[in-house]
């Protein structure tokens, strides 16, 4: 398939996800009755399942785009949105909130807010560690991110060890990553914050191509390399921080979707970024639906499922890779 066909197929996958996934689930639903507003079909489709599908789409798209950006800026195909420490910060914030018992309070969700705050603090921390006289280098970013990751992980383990059994279980559950039903207002806020960042990243796709080759390579071709590294890091932070605060860390999406698409489509970010958004979105929405139904009425954490679905798929792909020698 050519590159445009892949992009069109990705859009079709998104539309199909929105139309079909809300109909699948443990409760038998009739679309006709849901449209007619009959209870409980209407509530199950429009208030429970559809928002969840939409959150899965937004989160999956954002995480994949953040993954591509991390890999480009660190020039490492194995980097993930979690490499730079933002998600660990969000996790630490959320875990602290769970320990303090800040559950839902009316419109505000204390765990989310603490997650955002944790992500923001982590960003400032990593930049503080990594920047040298206003310059950010990929290597120091990586080191600072990895360091912050282990500090946050240690603090999370500490908090978990001193919390009660019930809270400890909530923490473990949160750290597995999961997509829950959210209010439409939350979705709107998320979209308003995420989509402009995705748009900015797409607009500068040509610059990321050069930065993925090297900072000097980009600078010698007129790309304001330092400015782009800063804004790229900021974009990664916003995308990862917002999503992680809502869903917990969902692994594999930001690694496997970009990797698989690069094997099929090549490394040009003008194709890779939009494709990653579309396929990452569809991948997470489908994974989440599968997580709902496989052991229904029980649910598998979607983070577990993305790894279970993604791993074997990825191995298949590597074995049948079209683009000859690259791995």
């Amino acid at each position, binding site marked *: 398939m050519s590159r445009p066909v892949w992009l069109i197929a990705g859009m079709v996958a998104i539309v199909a996800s929105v139309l079909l996934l809300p109909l699948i689930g443990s409760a038998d639903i009739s679309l006709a009755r849901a449209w007619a507003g009959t209870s409980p079909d209407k509530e199950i489709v429009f208030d429970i399942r559809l928002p969840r599908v939409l959150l899965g789409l937004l989160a999956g798209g954002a995480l994949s785009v953040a993954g591509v950006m991390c*890999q*480009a800026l660190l*020039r*490492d*195909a194995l980097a993930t949105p979690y490499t730079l420490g933002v998600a660990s910060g969000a996790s630490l914030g959320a875990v602290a909130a769970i320990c303090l018992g800040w559950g839902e309070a009316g419109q505000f969700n204390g765990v989310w807010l603490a997650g955002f705050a944790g992500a923001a603090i982590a960003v400032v921390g990593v930049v503080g560690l990594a920047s040298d006289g206003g310059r950010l280098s990929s290597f120091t970013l990586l080191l600072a991110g990895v360091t912050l990751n282990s500090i946050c992980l240690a603090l999370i383990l500490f908090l978990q060890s001193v919390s009660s059994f019930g809270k400890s279980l909530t923490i473990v559950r949160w750290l597995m990553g999961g997509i829950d039903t959210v209010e439409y207002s939350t979705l709107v806020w998320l979209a308003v914050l995420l989509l402009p960042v995705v748009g900015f990243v797409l*607009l500068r*796709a*040509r*610059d990321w*191509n*050069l930065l*993925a*080759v*090297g900072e*000097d*390579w980009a*600078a*010698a*071709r*007129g*790309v*304001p390399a330092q400015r782009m590294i800063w804004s790229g890091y900021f974009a990664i932070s916003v995308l990862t921080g917002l999503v992680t605060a809502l869903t917990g860390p969902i692994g594999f999406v930001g690694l496997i979707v970009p990797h698989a698409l*690069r*094997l099929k489509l*090549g*490394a*040009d970010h*003008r194709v890779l970024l939009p494709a990653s958004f579309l396929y990452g979105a569809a991948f997470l929405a489908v994974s989440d639906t599968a997580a709902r139904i496989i052991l229904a009425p029980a649910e598998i954490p979607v983070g577990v499922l993305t790894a279970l679905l993604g791993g074997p798929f990825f191995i298949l792909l590597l074995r049948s890779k079209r*683009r*000859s*020698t*690259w791995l």
Partner: protein
Amino acid sequence: MIYRLAEVGMRYGAATVLSRVSAEFAQAEFVAVLGPNGAGKSTLLGILAGLKSGHEGRCEYRDRGVEQWPRREFAREVSFLPQNVQISFPFSAQEIVLMGRTPHGRGWVESPADIAAAKRAMELTDSSNYRCRDFVSLSGGERQRVILAAALAQTPKVLLLDEPSSFLDLSHQVALYRLLARLPREEKMLVIAVTHDLNLAAAHADRVLILNDGQLVADGTPADVINEACLRDVFGVDAVIHQNRSARPVILYE
């Protein structure tokens, strides 16, 4: 004179890698920069390319310090070819060459003029055959020709090259140096190449700069500069100098 260097130096912490280099370069000449490892050749090239901040002295391109030039505008004039390009992603050779067109357009896609320039550059470097192949799958010499094509596709007035021939086979080494010697005459380009291949440089360059221990120790035509004393003192090699048919020095190592 389009490049003027006055007392240019560079320090990394306590180590001085380049000190008080002064030189001027004209619009159309092929300059080879020679010297042993660690002599400061690549640092000098990096300063000329405007990629080394914090150097000492003045480095001016067209009467403006290289740091004062807006990056895009400078990139339309000066192209820099790094020594070794490691790429972790499956870019095709053609995509790498097209990156050279970045300073020429702000568009999201390359224009037909960009594609024509990239095509011509790949023909000049004899790399068109593998334009659709993954850069990563190419041999060292093939990669070097692709990188050179990317630099030429930038259609610069100045071409700065860091050891452009290190991975090339014999026929492509000779072809490269013939091309580098042609560019000043046919395209009025200033070509400055750092190299370890003294014989190829002597046979093709208009001018040779020799660096040793961060100092500029010689600057002149190959016949003036490359002699037995210089080889012994700077490179620590005993050699005999002959002349080829165009009266250029040929070094025979004992």
